[in-house]
């Protein structure tokens, strides 16, 4: 597959009468987007705000972050099987509104979703303090179940991101990158002397608020499988994961998977990037054994020399991670794993819930229990009522002076296990 990705740099977002992109400014007519969102009968109301880098704004509780993208040349269009019709994506041309993000906000259950601070200490820990954010706040109809509400927000957010992304289709990109992912046979012929490398992408799949969708399929119902990394760039993988803000992969993270980008960077130079394997993180121990058997089996069939394995979430996915690592190492393939740590507030507890000597090459995204005090900011988009309940917060975390003291696990993307950020620990 060959995908040409055109990046259109967005330097500001402005609410306006007409939706358009002009000189790097994204103008949004919210009326149109509101109508689009309210097509879903589960949603009562929707409101829009803009949060720019450096502004004194706190966004919470964040559900998902999505980068506006749309395809210029098909087949198919972004978010296939969910927002657009089912079609295999990952080839042709795609335009990206770089520097812009749609951030969905809403209280699905009374806890858990993350914080994005646009300035101050908190801003250092989230990548989304550097994007111009169109924040969409949803109010559900009365009596909606948590499942229905989660699905409604997830889809409405994607629809909005797609609609915004389409504004860039006729624009000339500021930068173009071409990603080619040939068949494994061709790839091996192309660089016969370079080590053949794969990427095992573990996807959270445990149930309500913990799900990931691939072409619309709930990943917990799928066996370990393969796709082209370019399909992910076109939104083949979508986040329904609302829990553990620090180390969940938002849709934006999937669209911009940094392991894929950095493997492409080295492709043809020091390594030959030939395979992307996706696997799930289910609740049943038997599922964990089956899925990790399959990753090792695929790695073995593909005769890979090395793989990077990335994790998503806290606690029991450590078990999936270690099973994957151990079984793949047993096939004689080298592994490097990416995870984050829960070493306690003082950093002295055991970091992982599972461990094995075969995991001898580990990259850490930091200790999620680290405590930070975030300053009072001028504006809150969303609600602060739940800050106490957000992961990492605790009773009394919202002080009288408006500062909040939380563990960084409350901050969206702070210890992302795709290795999206620079935070680490020793």
């Amino acid at each position, binding site marked *: 597959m060959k995908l040409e990705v055109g990046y259109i740099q967005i330097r500001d977002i402005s609410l306006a009468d007409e939706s358009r992109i002009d000189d790097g400014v994204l103008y949004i007519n919210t009326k149109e987007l509101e109508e689009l969102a309210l097509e879903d009968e589960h949603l009562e109301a929707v409101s829009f705000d803009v949060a720019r880098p450096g502004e004194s704004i706190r966004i919470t509780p964040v559900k998902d972050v999505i980068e506006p993208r749309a395809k210029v040349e098909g087949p198919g269009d972004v978010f296939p099987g969910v927002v657009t019709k089912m079609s295999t994506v990952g080839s042709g041309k795609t335009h990206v509104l770089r520097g812009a993000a749609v951030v969905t906000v809403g209280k699905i259950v009374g806890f858990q979703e993350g914080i994005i601070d646009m300035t101050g200490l908190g801003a250092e820990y989230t990548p989304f303090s550097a994007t111009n954010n169109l924040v969409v706040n949803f109010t559900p109809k009365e009596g909606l179940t948590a499942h229905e509400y989660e699905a409604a927000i997830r889809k409405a957010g994607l629809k909005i991101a797609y609609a915004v992304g389409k504004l860039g289709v006729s624009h000339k990109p500021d930068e173009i990158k071409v990603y080619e992912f040939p068949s494994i046979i061709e790839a091996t012929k192309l660089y016969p002397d370079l080590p053949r490398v794969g990427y095992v992408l573990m996807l959270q799949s445990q149930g309500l608020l913990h799900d990931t969708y691939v072409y619309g399929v709930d990943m917990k119902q799928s066996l370990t499988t393969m796709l082209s990394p370019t399909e992910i760039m076109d939104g083949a993988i979508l986040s329904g994961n609302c829990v553990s803000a620090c180390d969940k992969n938002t849709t934006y993270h999937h669209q911009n998977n940094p392991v894929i980008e950095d493997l492409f960077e080295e492709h043809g130079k020091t390594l030959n990037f030939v395979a992307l394997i996706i696997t799930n993180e289910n609740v049943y121990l038997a599922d964990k054994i089956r899925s990790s058997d399959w990753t090792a089996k695929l790695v073995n069939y593909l005769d890979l020399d090395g793989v990077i394995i990335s994790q998503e979430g806290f606690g029991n996915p450590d078990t999936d991670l270690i099973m994957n690592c151990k079984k793949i190492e047993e096939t004689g393939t080298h592994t490097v*794993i*990416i995870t984050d740590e829960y070493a306690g507030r003082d950093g002295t507890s*055991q970091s992982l819930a599972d461990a094995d*000597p075969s995991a*001898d090459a580990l*990259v*850490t995204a930091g200790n999620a229990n680290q405590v930070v005090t975030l300053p009072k900011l001028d504006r809150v988009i969303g609600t602060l009522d739940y800050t106490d309940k957000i992961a990492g917060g605790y009773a009394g975390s919202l002080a009288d002076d408006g500062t909040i003291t939380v563990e960084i696990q409350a901050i969206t993307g702070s210890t992302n296990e795709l290795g999206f950020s620079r935070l680490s620990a020793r």
Partner: protein
Amino acid sequence: MSKFRVVHYINQFYAGIGGEEFADHKPEVREGVVGPGMALAGAFGDKAEIISTVVCGDSFFNENVAEAKKTILDMVKKANPDIFIAGPAFNAGRYGVACGTICEAVKEELNIPVITGMFEENPGTDMFKDKMYIVATKPSAAGMRDAIPVIAALALKLAGKEKIGASVEEGYLPNNTRVNFFEKERGSRRAVDMLIKKMAGKPFVTEYPMPDFDRVEPNPAVNDFKSITVALVTSGGIVPKGNPDHIESSSASKYGEYDITGVNDLTAETYETAHGGYDPVYANADADRVLPVDVMRDFEREGIIGKLHNKFYTTVGNGTSTKSSKQFAAEYAQKLKNDNVQAVILTST
């Protein structure tokens, strides 16, 4: 701003008194800078001043720990520094242990921040790295030039009660306390670089060493005890009264092999524990509590087991390194096999 006051601790060798033959030199305090303190003073510039240097022989310190500690604590207390620096000790074992011991005492009893420096394989490293900042040095004094600026910089931060960064940033040995910091490259890039090195067989450094566990698959259960010889092995330090082989109360460097032919009960008169890591009162009163010879003899009489092996093996688990433990076990496991022992009961404390 006034200068931070520093007290520096060194051994007889670095004080220029002499080598091993002068190692029983008693603690003395000298005004100002001595030996490596010169380089430290240079690194401090006008930010800190070494007001005095404590010199003590390594043998004296390690053989008279209580007395040495007390004398030196008095000296440090009198000087009342903002920071106490010991060494660096490089790979000198007794010097390292002395540096760690005195630093711990100064920190705990005088509440003064401390810092030392050692090579990662110095025995003092394992004993003290979780209790204080130990700057990583090369094995020999040839590493002085590299070590001094790192020690000086970290000492100034400690004296100023500044926030201390992660081990890789500050240069101290990893101490089982995880500290966050921002790397130069993002995680994915570091993972790709690590994989390239790993595939090429080049050295790489994991960012989180797996906890050091040496899991051993248990052997299948023994079905029939009636006809076999069972041995007792303990890390609880049970030894014949008087500890004839002088097994150390912590960080044991040896194990003992003792004959129990005809012994039916371990009594306060005949056995005791050498272990320094738990309250020995109950073990000393009746060592069967740790090494159940009495019960095993009952089993033998009742025919539940074939026979209790006539020797037991013992060491002290307290602070003893995994490496030594493995080495001990490999040796006596072979002996047990040679003696046709088919099952072993391992007791700890």
